[in-house]
């Protein structure tokens, strides 16, 4: 038996690509959730109400200090026990999105803190309302600086999607495992799965590094 069987490798590529689509879908939806929820968490941390900002802080700390896998189990198995049954993809996206939201929240916060105090003061001197100051003045200056860091989290989320396998999402790794079990050959499926991850995350990190350099130049 050959160590590497080209025919077998070619035959499993379609199912791996199916898995890739699922992985990309989970990453895209998870990122979207992480971006929106993270921004909300960051804004809550700036709330003048002590209870609100403390609650947001507590939530961020708890989620960041527990493993993603545990959180996935909570979304999928624990909620089901309490009568809330989520599909594995839904639970996976919620798990990824909420987990990474606590990281993006810190990115937003750092970006917001980097906006000079004079900008806030000018907005105040011009009597701009609070909401307008955020939307029109602070965020447009903060967000470009955040993009590279947010991009890095998208890449790391992408690489963590195989964890969704444990709650039944058939991503790249799930497909590879299935194909391997069927033929009882694991070298080709797992190698190809690794290559697919590499082929996407490596160029992405290079792109992000370039973006970072461009942002820093401004």
């Amino acid at each position, binding site marked *: 038996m050959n160590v590497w069987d080209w025919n077998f490798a070619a035959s499993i590529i379609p199912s791996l690509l199916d898995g890739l689509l699922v992985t990309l879908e989970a990453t895209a939806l998870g990122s979207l959730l992480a971006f929106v929820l993270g921004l909300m968490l960051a804004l809550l941390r700036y709330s003048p109400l002590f209870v609100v900002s403390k609650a947001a802080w507590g939530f961020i700390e708890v989620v960041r200090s527990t493993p993603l896998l545990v959180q996935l189990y909570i979304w999928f198995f624990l909620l089901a026990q309490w009568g809330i049954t989520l599909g594995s993809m839904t639970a996976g996206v919620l798990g990824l999105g909420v987990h990474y939201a606590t990281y993006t929240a810190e990115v937003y916060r750092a970006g917001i803190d980097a906006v000079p105090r004079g900008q806030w*003061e000018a907005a105040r001197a011009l009597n701009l309302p609070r909401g307008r100051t955020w939307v029109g003045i602070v965020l447009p*200056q903060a967000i470009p600086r955040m993009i590279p860091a947010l991009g890095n989290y998208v890449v790391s989320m992408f690489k963590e999607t195989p964890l969704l396998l444990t709650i039944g999402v058939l991503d790249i790794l799930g497909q590879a495992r299935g194909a391997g079990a069927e033929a009882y050959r694991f070298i080709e499926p797992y190698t190809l799965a690794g290559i697919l991850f590499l082929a996407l995350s490596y160029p992405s990190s290079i792109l992000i590094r370039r973006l970072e350099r461009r942002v820093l130049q401004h």
Partner: protein
Amino acid sequence: MFSSTRHPQEAVQTADIETEQPMVRFNSIMKAFGDQVVLNELDLEVGSGEKVALIGPSGSGKTTILRMLMTLERPDAGTIYVDGDPLWHMERNGTTVPADERHLRQMRTKIGMVFQQFNLFPHMTVLRNIAEAPIRVLGIPRAEAEERARHLLDQVGLAGKADYRPSQLSGGQQQRVAIARAIAMRPKVMLFDEVTSALDPELVAEVHAVLRDLATETGMTMLLVTHEMNFARDIADRVLMFDQGRIIESGPPERIFTHPENDRTKSFLRAVLEAT
């Protein structure tokens, strides 16, 4: 130049300096940062339309006065009145309570400020910098607000720069945009916080020229913190010399600069004039 005929509504009403009610009044104002007392029982009155220069060593509380008027800093004790109304307090059910955001917003419509570091919005064009607040705060339609902004740009000598970003302008040009931005809100009181301190020497004159026009052609009340004594002499009706949170000498510029009475005023002026 600022009392335009093309836009008669731009002309700020010439105020009557003789009116009884001062435009700005500080009533035994206290302010400390930590252990450091910045203002100590300060009393101060500025008449409507009056131009007052605040001079003195750094750390003497001049900038804090402007920042409290712009509601950027809250006094620890005492009362500030602007145009007859308390700034940091309001009446509720017959008692005086700390001002809420609504009251502060109401009071802020009377006050404008120009900062040492310009603080223009870097992601907006020059035109948008000036038109943003009139659109968002005063509810002026965009087309009208932009037309007014262009007119103001013309007045500060930057007619061709409407579509530039602040970063494409010199410091002097940026500061002139910042002045136009503040005037666009038509405040009764304008605060200038060392507006030429961050500028290269050769750019100071153009900003001073704009301020001089503003002072002579409008009835705006102006408070200027400055280290430029010639400019203060030029523009101010009255000069206030600060030291350690108190006004130690006050009078018309001709007298303060030629016959200062207080010893510390004398040594301060000597030091400043030697430096320039």
